[in-house]
C-alpha cells in the first residue's frame, strides 16, 4: 500500500514538473542563447549548453545598436505613466469607495467598461486625435495613452483594497483636521500600500509590454520603446538571433524582478478584480 502510494505520488510529481519545465523552457532558452558565443548560436545540431559562457552579445547589443536608448525610453515612459495612473486611480477609487453621489453607478460602469473595451479598435481615431493635438512622435503622447489604458483596471483593483480599509480610520484622520487629500495620503496610503504597489506593478508591466500604441504613435527611432525596438530586430531575412535573444533577456528583466519581489501579492491583487465572487 505504502509503495503504491509512493509510486502514484512520484507519477503526479513527475507529470506536473515535466509540464512545468516544458512551459519554462522557451524563456530558459532565450537566456541560454544570449550567453552563447556567436559561432555556436547557428549550430546544426541541438546542444542544451554551449562550450563556454560569454557576455559578448550583450556588449555588441549595447554598443552597436540603439537598444540602450529603447530601454531608457521605455523606463521613462513606463515610470511616468505608472506614477500618474496610480495617482489618478487612487483618487477615483477613493471617491467611488467613500462617497455616494449622483451618477456614481453610471461612472463606475463606464470605468469598468473601458477596462473591457479594447483600445485596439480605437487605434485609428486615437492616431487622428493625437495628430491634431500634436502628440504623435512624443513621449508625452505615449504616457497619456498608457495612463488611459491602465487607469480602468487600476481603479477596479484599488476599489477592492480601499473597500477593505475600515472607514473609522478616515474619520480619525478627518478629526485630526486632514483634508480629503490629507486623508488619502496619511491614512489610506500607509494601510493600503500593498494594493497600491500591486496596482503600480500592473500599470508598469502593461506600459513596459505595450506594442501597438507605441508602434503607431512613435516612428522616430530615438523615441522608440523596447517592444517596438525589439520587434524591429527580428522577422528580417538576416536575423541576428544572438542579439535578438540578448535584447529579449533585457526586455524581460524589469518585469521579472518586480514579479519575483511581489509575486504572491500581485497575483491575489490581479485576481481580486477578475474572479471576485
Amino acid at each position, binding site marked *: 500500500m505504502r509503495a503504491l502510494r509512493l509510486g502514484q505520488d512520484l507519477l503526479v510529481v513527475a507529470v506536473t514538473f515535466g509540464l512545468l519545465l516544458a512551459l519554462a523552457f522557451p524563456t530558459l532558452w532565450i537566456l541560454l542563447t544570449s550567453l552563447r558565443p556567436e559561432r555556436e548560436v547557428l549550430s546544426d545540431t541541438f546542444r542544451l549548453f554551449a562550450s563556454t559562457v560569454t557576455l559578448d552579445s550583450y556588449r555588441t547589443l549595447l554598443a552597436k545598436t540603439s537598444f540602450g536608448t529603447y530601454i531608457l525610453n521605455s523606463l521613462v515612459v513606463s515610470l511616468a505613466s505608472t506614477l500618474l495612473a496610480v495617482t489618478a486611480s487612487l483618487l477615483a477609487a477613493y471617491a467611488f469607495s467613500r462617497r455616494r453621489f449622483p451618477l456614481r453607478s453610471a461612472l463606475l460602469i463606464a470605468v469598468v467598461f473601458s477596462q473591457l473595451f479594447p483600445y485596439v479598435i480605437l487605434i485609428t481615431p486615437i492616431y487622428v486625435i493625437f495628430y491634431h493635438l500634436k502628440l504623435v512622435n512624443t513621449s508625452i503622447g505615449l504616457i497619456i495613452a498608457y495612463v488611459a489604458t491602465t487607469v480602468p483596471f487600476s481603479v477596479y483593483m484599488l476599489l477592492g483594497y480601499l473597500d477593505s480599509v475600515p472607514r473609522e480610520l478616515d474619520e480619525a484622520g478627518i478629526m485630526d483636521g486632514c*483634508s480629503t487629500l490629507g486623508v488619502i495620503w496619511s491614512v489610506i496610503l500607509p494601510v493600503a500600500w500593498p494594493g497600491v504597489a500591486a496596482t503600480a506593478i500592473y500599470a508598469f508591466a502593461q506600459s513596459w509590454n505595450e506594442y501597438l500604441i507605441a508602434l503607431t504613435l512613435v516612428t522616430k527611432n530615438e523615441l522608440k520603446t523596447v517592444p517596438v525596438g525589439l520587434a524591429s530586430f527580428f522577422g528580417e531575412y538576416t536575423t541576428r538571433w544572438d542579439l535578438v535573444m540578448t535584447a529579449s533577456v533585457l526586455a524581460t528583466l524589469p518585469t521579472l524582478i518586480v514579479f519575483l519581489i511581489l509575486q504572491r501579492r500581485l497575483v491575489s491583487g490581479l485576481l481580486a478584480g477578475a474572479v471576485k465572487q
Partner: protein
Amino acid sequence: MVGTRPAPRCPGTPGAGGEDRAVRGRRLCALAEPYLLLFPALAVLALFFFGPALFNILLSFQSISLFELGRGGTWAGFANFVALVRDPLTGLALSNTVFWLTLVTVSLRIGLGLALALLLNSVVIRRWRLSGLARSLVLIPWVTPPVVAVAAWQWLLQARYGAINQILVEVGLLQDGIPFLARASTVWWAVSAIIVWRELPFVVIALLAGLQSIPGELYEAARIDGASEPRILWRVTLPLLRPVLAVVTLLITIWTFNNFLYVWLATRGGPGVKTQVLATQMYLEAFVNYRLGYGAAVGVLMGLIMLAFSIVYFNTAFKRSLGQA
C-alpha cells in the same frame, strides 16, 4: 491636476463671507468633491476611450487618407462598409478571428489550464510541499513580455537552427526542419502555440484561486460518502468552479479576440493572407494602405461583436460584484 493642489479641500474657515456663506460654500464643495477626485481619471478616459469611440464611428463614414489628416476627410456615406462587406478578405479575417485566434486558443487554454490547476492543487503536490515552486514555474511565460514570447518562438521554430526542429529531427520525427510559421498547413498551430504558451499562466492561477476557495469539508463529506475521485471532480469540483471558469473564459475571449500583437509579429498575417485577423486587417488598412476611414469601419465591426460579448460579461460577472459592493 487635482493631485498638485489641494482643490477638493473645503474652505472651512468662516470669516470673509460670514457664517451663512461658509456653510453654503462647504456644502457646495462637498457636493463637487467626488467629481473633482474623479476628474483626472475620467478626463484621460474621455480623451482616450469615449472620445475616440464616437470619433471612430464618424471616421468610418469618411474617406480619409493618412496623408491628408491636416485637411480632413470627405463624407463617404456607407461606402467603407459596402467595401468591407464586399472584400473577400473580411470573411476570411472574421472566421480566422473567431475560430483560430479565439475558439482554438481559448479552449486549449481552458483545458490545459484546468488540468494544470488541478495538478497544482492536488493533495500530492501539497503533501510534498511543492506548491510554491510549482506556482513560480507556472508564472514564467507570463513574466515574459508578449513581444519577447514571439521572438523566442520564432527562434525555437526556425527551420534549420531552431531548437524544436533540431530536437524533432534528432529523435527522428522529422526528416528536415519545417518552417512552421511560414507554411500554410502549420502556421495556425504555431501561432496558437505562442498564444497558449504565453497566456496559459493567467488561466492556471485564476482557476487555482477558484479551486482553493472551495471548502475542504465538501471533499471530505464526498469521500466519507464513498464517492470516487473522478466523481468528486465531476460532481463537486467542477460545478463549484463554474462561476470562476465562466468569468475567466469571457475575459480571455475578449482579450484574445482583439489581439493584434501575436499574429502581426509572428506572421504579419501571412503566408499570403492565411492568418489575417480583424485586428491586423484594421491596422493594415489604416496604417499600411493609409485608408483611415476603412480601418475605422473594421473597428466598428469589431466593436459591435465586442459589445455582444461585454453584455454577457456584465450579466454574469459584474452584476455579482456590484451587488456585493
